[in-house]
Structure formats: structure tokens, C-alpha cells
């Protein structure tokens, strides 16, 4: 099978990776770049555990080929925090207990970050719509919604 040399930016860092045609963006992030935040859940675009930001928009990275990320800017959950600390969404999630087992938040945080980037004061319905592709089996969602609301209030 042919391999492709791609150059992309992941969490602000320039990367060059050689990938086979059938490697997904998720597999490349996890197995080539060691970024294991995004998870492989359903592998069908239903659960959202693999959600990462690609050029500013959340995508299911299990349904994107690595080769398609040539030139792209990718942000994973590892890229939300910086030297100044955690993202406000992460702080809110800790405060409100918006996370339990920890499998889904790497995807949900990316969806929520993308939502607040495009709409800093979303309504409850807008939050639900943005997060409906991020399934959680622990929390019952109430505290996830509370986390996003609190982060939105905090700017």
C-alpha cells in the first residue's frame, strides 16, 4: 500500500508524518504522535469520543484519513491547556464534576470549545445540539451541560 508524507500542525506544533492510505487521523494521533486523549469508541461517527478540531471545526477523527489532514491545523484535548493552565471549560468541568470515568470528555471538550468559539453565549438548546454527538454513559449529561454553561459565564 502506498504511503504519503504529510505535514500538519498539531496543538501548535509542526509535524511531519508518513502514513499509509488507510490510516485514520485518530490512529495517527494516538499511535504515531502519542496523543492518546482522543479515544476510539464506536468507529462509526456515533459516539464522538474521537472528536478533534480540524481547521477550527470538530470532526470525528475515526472517519477522517490521516492523509486528508495534509496542511491542516489539528487541536486535540491535549492542546486545550497551555502554560497558563487549563482551558476554562476544563476548570468548569472539574468544579461541577462534569466528568466521571473520563472516556468521553476529550471529545466533548473539543465540541464544547468549538461551540464557545463560534457562539460565546449559547442557549441550553444550542449546547445540547452541539454536544449531541458526544455520548456519555456516566454523568446523565446534566453536569456536562452545567460545566459548559459555567465556562460560558466565566468567558
Amino acid at each position, binding site marked *: *500500500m*502506498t504511503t*504519503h508524507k504529510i505535514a500538519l500542525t498539531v496543538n501548535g506544533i509542526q509535524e511531519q508524518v508518513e502514513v*499509509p*492510505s*488507510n490510516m*485514520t487521523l*485518530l*490512529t495517527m494521533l494516538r499511535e504515531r504522535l502519542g496523543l492518546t486523549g482522543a479515544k*476510539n469508541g464506536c*468507529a*462509526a*461517527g456515533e459516539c*464522538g469520543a474521537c*472528536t478533534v478540531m*480540524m481547521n477550527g*471545526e*470538530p*470532526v*470525528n477523527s*475515526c*472517519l*477522517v*484519513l490521516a*492523509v*486528508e489532514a*495534509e496542511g491542516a491545523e489539528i487541536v486535540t484535548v491535549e492542546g486545550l491547556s497551555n502554560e497558563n493552565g487549563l482551558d476554562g471549560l476544563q476548570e468548569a468541568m472539574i468544579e461541577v464534576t462534569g466528568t466521571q470515568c473520563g472516556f468521553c470528555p476529550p471529545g466533548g471538550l473539543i*465540541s464544547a470549545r*468549538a*461551540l464557545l468559539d463560534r457562539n460565546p453565549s449559547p442557549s441550553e438548546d444550542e449546547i445540547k*445540539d*452541539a454536544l*449531541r*454527538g*458526544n455520548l456519555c454513559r456516566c454523568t446523565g449529561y446534566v453536569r456536562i451541560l452545567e460545566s459548559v454553561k459555567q465556562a460560558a459565564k466565566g468567558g
Partner: protein
Amino acid sequence: MEVVSSGLPEFEYIHAESIEQASTFLLDESKDSRLFMGGTDLFVQMRAGARSPSLLVDVKHLPGMNDIQLKPDGSLHVGAAVNLNALARHEDVAEHYALLAEAAQSVGSYQLRSRATMGGNLCNASPAADTAPAALVLGARLIAQSGKDERSIPVEAFFLGPGETALQRGEILTRIEFPSPPKRSVGRYLKLGRNAAGDLAIVGVAVLGFPDDEAPSGYRFRLALSSVAPTPLLVPEVENILSGETMNDERIQAAARTAQQAAKPIDDVRATADYRSAMVEVYARRALKAVWAALRRDN
């Protein structure tokens, strides 16, 4: 419970340089090639073992494929690779083709829609394709290119069966053209899923209604269905029933029953044929009533 591997079978990937070049790859009979857009259906099918193409031909970056243009005559041209979020939030689409925006928005989740394309939604030819009923009632035409040749296919003639379209081998859908919608028209897409969170439709009903002084009832309505026949389905009899006599609840009921009779549903994992049939009538009635109420309010 079937375990689906997260890995994809082996294939080659081509980032096509032009539609002509992509056509040439698709016509090469030594390869089982497939056009590749957002991948949101294709990769799921490949993981389930339903498809195993040896070559994926990517065309979504090519000129025009991502354009949305409202033309001076009021018609709308949508590039085949326009993703469903971009379609739903485009100002001209939201203002003049609200039904299309509503249908696009009903697909899957936000992150799925940032990859899923209108062209892919139509070309997969799923009976459940959510943008198809909207395309049918809006009278869309699909522009297919092979080499340098282009032809325009009316959407009513596009769907031949589950997964089957009127596209010939080597032909590529490059854009979808919508004629200017009738003046003061109102549209709704109602979708019943197993949950409210972006499931595939058990039943989908699109209705477009508009005032028409030449119709005895003063109105015309078009209705199309998804998920209840081998293909998305326009029900032209609805237009006759609702244009002929004065509109009232009985006429709407008759039209909803006609839609029910036109449906040819099957049992599947999401619902039984009987339930689908019952729900076609209910959702057709609700969609027609909602559009009629909006027309009386607006006009």
C-alpha cells in the same frame, strides 16, 4: 453483537488534480474505485465489510466543489462537497431555502455534519437520505460531469434503488442546482428517529407549500418522503389533492393518506413496516398542517 474493527481495509488514495482526472481513475476497470467525499458513510460501510474499494478518489478540494452561490435569478448552486454545517448556516440558504437548511441540520451530529457533504448524502442514495426529500420538493437538478462532458439530471430521476443512482461509471456529481423557490413558499422537514439525537430517520417528510392564485384552493403543496421506500419518494398526487378544492383538515387528511399509500416501507432495525406506514400518515399530516398554518399566517 457484531464487533466492528476500527481499522480500515487496505486501499490506495488519490488526491485528484481535476474532475477529468478523477473520471479517468473511476473508469479504469482494473480497479474497484470509488469517489470519496466526507467518508462519513463510506468508512462505516467499509468497517462493516459492506464495501472494499481498492482506490478512493478524493475530489472535495477541487474548484467549485465547496461553493454556495445564490444566482441573480434566485436559483441556488451548491457544490457537491459543501458540508452540511456550511449549507445549514449559509445566509442565503437560511433565508431563501430554509427547508434545505432544516434538512441538512437534521443529519447526525455537529461533528459528523462538518464532514458529511450534500453530494455524498445524495450519491449514497440511502432511502433515509435527509437532504433528498428537500431536493425533491424544491425541484433540484444534479449536475454530473464525466471527462469534460456535463449533464443535468432531475432529482426525481436520480434515485434508482438503495445505493443506486442514475450516475454512469466515471460520472461525478459536481453540484446541485435549485431553481428559485416559488414566491412566499414555506417548507418543513419533519423527521421521526428512535431518539432526538440525530438518528437515521424512521420516517422523514418534507413539505413545500406556496400560494397560487391559479389553483382553485389558492395553494400548491409538494410532499416527499424518506426512509419508507427503496428510494426517497416524491408523492405528486398530494399536489393535485390540495390544489383542487378549498383547503381544510379533511383535504389534508386525504393527502396524508395518499402519502401513506405511496410509501412502500420495510421492517428493519429501526422500525417495522406497519409502524412506518402509520407514522407516514401522522408525519405527513403534521407537516402539511404546519406549512398550511405558516402560509395563512404569512400571506
